[in-house]
């Protein structure tokens, strides 16, 4: 879709001077957030170490995992190039965070660009969460992180083998495939080295301090992804296809202000720290803000999740009206 074909030109909301002000980047703010985030990961890893072998180990692992999984926020911010003003700092951090989060930098950049172009368009938006009709099975698969684990690591593995998931090939330019393949091989080499060292030293540290908590923390991220778009219009209007949600100061810090998601879609070039100011300017023209994460999730479950029989009936109706329905979601995970 060309931007002019979108129902609303997102750039109409701000004049040039306001945009220049709001899109100004800062290395210091980016570094503050990134160091803070990694310090939290380190401290909670320490807490996990101290509680090892006790009943407190599981909650400690969960909290550590939630903060680890929130590294999605800097990964996403760096993919836009808005985390820092200095380019190399942004790209270095992008690689570092992507390695920990298990996401391939260049592939994610292409995928995420398409998500911004085709937000909420069934069959086009590769990051579309729970395209309707949504059954309980799909909702649970999303919330436990199954969809993430069967997409991101699988994509890296396929790229390292010199192939690509068929659903990704239309938006990744052929000219950039060599880079995508080499990048994935570097990532696999890093993960492989960690695995070999762990086996050599007989250490479970990568499992205990990284992979298990990472899996335990992912569901919260998945619920955030649901809140960002699910239940909003499935159409090209940026005012109605994305939702911001109120969040505590702590959650906003951990998510690098991404609960202001509508504002991010209106002006993706605005850095995370400018989103509250952007909300002040354009918030009243956008989708009503969600009360809080759990209220939004409850509302999504109440209004969007249906039985399999009902899903089949809706699909049959849509097909009869020749509407586009992404049925791949019903038979195979992305």
């Amino acid at each position, binding site marked *: 879709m*060309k931007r002019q074909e979108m129902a609303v030109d997102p*750039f109409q909301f701000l004049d040039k001077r306001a945009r220049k002000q709001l899109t100004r980047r800062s290395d210091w703010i980016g570094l503050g957030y990134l160091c803070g985030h990694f310090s939290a990961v380190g401290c909670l890893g320490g807490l996990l170490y101290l509680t090892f072998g006790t009943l407190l180990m599981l909650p400690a692992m969960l909290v550590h995992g939630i903060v680890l999984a929130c590294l999605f926020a800097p990964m996403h911010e760096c993919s836009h*190039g808005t985390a820092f003003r200095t380019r190399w700092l942004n790209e270095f951090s992008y690689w570092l965070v992507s390695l920990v989060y298990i996401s391939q930098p260049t592939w994610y*950049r292409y995928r995420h*660009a398409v998500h*911004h172009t085709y937000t909420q368009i069934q069959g086009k938006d590769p990051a579309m969460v729970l395209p309707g009709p949504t059954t309980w099975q799909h909702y649970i698969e999303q919330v436990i992180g199954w969809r993430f684990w069967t997409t991101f690591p699988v994509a890296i593995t396929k790229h390292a083998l010199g192939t690509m998931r068929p659903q990704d090939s239309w938006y990744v*330019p052929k000219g950039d495939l060599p880079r995508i393949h080499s990048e994935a091989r570097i990532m696999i080499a890093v993960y492989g080295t960690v695995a070999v060292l762990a086996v050599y030293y007989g250490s479970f540290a990568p499992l205990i301090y990284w992979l298990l908590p990472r899996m335990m923390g992912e569901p919260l991220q998945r619920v955030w992804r649901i809140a960002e778009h699910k239940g909003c219009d499935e159409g090209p209007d940026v005012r109605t296809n994305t939702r911001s949600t109120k969040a505590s100061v702590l959650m906003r810090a951990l998510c690098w202000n991404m609960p202001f998601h509508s504002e991010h879609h209106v002006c993706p070039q605005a850095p995370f720290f400018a989103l509250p100011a952007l909300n002040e300017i354009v918030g009243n023209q956008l989708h009503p803000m969600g009360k809080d994460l759990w209220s939004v999730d409850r509302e999504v479950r109440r209004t969007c999740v249906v039985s399999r029989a009902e899903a089949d009936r809706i699909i049959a109706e849509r097909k009869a009206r020749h509407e586009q329905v992404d049925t791949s979601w019903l038979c195979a995970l992305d």
Partner: protein
Amino acid sequence: MIEGLGEGWHFAGNADDFEDEDVDQVMVGSLAIAVYRAKGEFYATQDLCTHEHAYLSDGVLIDCVVECPFHQGRFDVRTGAALSAPVIDPLKTYPLKVLGGKIYVHVSRTEAEADSQEQARYGA
């Protein structure tokens, strides 16, 4: 034709109107050109991003790199080179002169027509 300059030069604004890291759009017929002030120097490129329909003059200029407002693809405004995904095709650059505080870009008539058609492919 502008006095003192040859064929194909077009007035593109006053230098004083540009702060550093400013980018603005100039129309030559139906062709959109982006004019930048980067590190004190002026540059001109095609305004339409080579990735999808968005004008770089709506974007962010940091040092000598312009960032597309839509997907944050990046280009070096001095050479037009594409620097990072999702952009891979370079921008066309145009010669530019600053004379007496006035900015001029050079686009010949045939070039403007051809580039306008190319731009129309992207739906501008």
